[in-house]
């Protein structure tokens, strides 16, 4: 009998970005401890380390590693780059935010990096154990980051709410995993896939396990009806953290769901589980868009719009095939650019964390602060899905794959609700340019970091909107490689 080696040196290549990010986080904390005078250099250092991690992505070998529990490939690379991009933008916005609030510390950047490692684990794990570990690594970093501004009551309160909800949701995810383990004898997704080939779709144990898992992951995704925490947490969290939190964890959870749904295969369709997912998606789109209309606080409005956007992405998940996975990947890239950009503008405008940015605060801002006005407008156009922005092409792609998979009704609801959403997104643009504003007291010193981040967002949104072909082709090829092994 030959023993499978537990570790082979070349496997380290498969976790290179994770290793770099983990060490970078430690470096950030040590830097803060040993050179507190040089705090100003911390954000540039964090940006540099994130870029090194992104560069190392090209050296990662594709394949299955660690005894079939870890898979790297073109698609995980795209998702990794989305996580790194989100972390990079959040870091750039954080620099000005943290200095303004006078709470800059190395652990902030370290937690962003470690959270990113958790997301990468979720996206690459072929074993539910790895997915759960990644999710927890991410969640614990989020608990701390949301409450990072601990002297401010709403930040602490947001952290409390996210902690209780998140830990509660983790309980459901774990119980669902335990029941799947009981049904199939393993938590590896490959074993689950084999098991589901012959599983009885009417086994109530499996249905209960699926509902528990979806309820738990629905919390993390802020899917209605599990969305109640999202507006409060986004409002209370430091704004750059809210920007990061509103995108990256959702994208990572979606990637984990792609693998889980793919492993479940036809059983999921027979057992009507996808009807449950369709209901969650429809509820999210309707509740998210309807309640967003009533919001005047920009952060709360973006929270509800984020609920709706997860609903759109879930439409593509109803049938997991190459096109729909590619559509989710494209949407993830777009969503990262536009949502972080929108939160970033809000972060730069507020005088402090307790200063809410309402529609009235941004009235006339487009003339007082042309660059911020432009950036916010581009993000709003993209979020509402108007051409020639990235939001239009990626939303179009989602709805197209949904109709091709035979989910016309859900796609129709998606299109109708996204028409409704144009109202509240363009209302922001209306306030920016067509309302008389105050005397410009919201404007703060514009920092070069924030301007750089906003430029990345605007250029990315317009580039993908005008010339989407390369991204679409790459995502399509990556999704084929993941699902069909070509």
């Amino acid at each position, binding site marked *: 009998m030959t023993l499978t080696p537990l570790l082979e040196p070349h496997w380290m290549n498969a976790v290179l970005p994770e290793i770099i990010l983990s060490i970078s986080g430690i470096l950030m904390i040590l830097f803060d401890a040993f050179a507190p005078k040089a705090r100003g250099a911390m954000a540039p250092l964090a940006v540099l380390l994130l870029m090194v991690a992104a560069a190392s992505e090209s050296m990662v070998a594709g394949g299955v590693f660690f005894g079939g529990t870890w898979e790297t490939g073109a698609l995980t690379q795209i998702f990794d780059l989305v996580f790194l991009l989100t972390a990079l933008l959040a870091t750039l916005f954080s620099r000005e935010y943290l200095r303004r609030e006078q709470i800059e510390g190395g652990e902030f950047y370290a937690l962003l990096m470690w959270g990113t490692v958790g997301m990468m684990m979720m996206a690459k794990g072929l074993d539910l154990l790895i997915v759960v570990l990644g999710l927890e690594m991410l*969640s614990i970093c989020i*608990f701390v980051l949301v409450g990072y501004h601990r002297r401010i009551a709403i930040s602490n309160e947001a952290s409390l709410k996210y902690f*209780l909800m998140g830990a509660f949701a983790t*309980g459901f995810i774990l119980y669902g995993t335990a029941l799947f383990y009981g049904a199939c004898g393993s938590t590896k997704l490959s074993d689950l896939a084999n098991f589901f080939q012959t599983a009885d779709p009417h086994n109530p144990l499996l249905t209960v396990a699926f509902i528990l898992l979806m309820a738990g992951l629905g919390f993390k995704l802020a899917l209605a009806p599990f969305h109640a925490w999202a507006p409060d947490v986004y409002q209370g969290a430091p704004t750059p953290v809210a920007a990061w939190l509103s995108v990256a964890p959702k994208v990572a959870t979606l990637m984990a769901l792609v693998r889980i749904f793919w492993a479940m295969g036809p059983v999921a369709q027979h057992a009507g589980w996808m009807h449950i997912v369709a209901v969650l998606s429809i509820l999210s789109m309707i509740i998210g868009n309807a309640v967003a209309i009533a919001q005047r606080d920009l952060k709360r409005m973006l929270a509800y719009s984020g609920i709706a956007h997860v609903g759109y992405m879930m439409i593509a998940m109803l049938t997991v095939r190459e096109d729909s996975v590619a559509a989710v990947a494209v949407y993830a890239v777009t969503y990262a650019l536009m949502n972080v950009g929108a939160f970033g503008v809000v972060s730069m405008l507020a005088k402090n964390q307790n200063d809410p940015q309402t529609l009235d605060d941004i009235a006339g801002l487009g003339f007082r602060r042309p660059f911020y006005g432009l950036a916010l407008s581009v993000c709003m156009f993209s979020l509402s899905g108007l051409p020639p922005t990235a939001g239009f092409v990626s939303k179009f792609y989602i709805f197209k794959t949904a109709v091709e998979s035979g989910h016309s009704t859900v796609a129709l609801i998606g299109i109708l609700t996204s028409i409704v959403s144009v109202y509240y997104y363009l209302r922001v643009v209306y306030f920016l340019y067509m309302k008389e504003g105050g005397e410009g007291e919201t404007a703060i010193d514009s920092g070069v970091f924030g301007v750089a981040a906003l430029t990345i967002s605007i250029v990315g949104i317009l580039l993908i909107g005008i010339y989407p072909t390369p991204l679409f082709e790459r995502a399509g090829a990556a999704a084929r490689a993941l699902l069909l092994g070509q």
Partner: protein
Amino acid sequence: MPGIPTNYFLILSAILFTIGVCGVLTRRNGITIFMSIELMVNAVNLTFVAYARQFHSLHGLIFVFFVMAIAAAEAAVGLAIFIALYHHRDTIDVDEANLMHW
């Protein structure tokens, strides 16, 4: 299999999990809610151990070790959050945390 059938463990863990969920939904003291969540997690551990015993597999046992580590890490961060909350309000009643509409 000799000894107690696996089903007994599963029923017990389902009951414990339900008690935990009820505790989270009905209690208002932060620490008590957190204890209820720990009860849910321990019910999950019992399920894993019971199945691992039935299958004679290590997989479920390893999962339990990681779940315990996760619970410990959550406890560390969670209790710190409660201390910060207590500093702000002199209470850890979650109904008092109502600056934003809960």
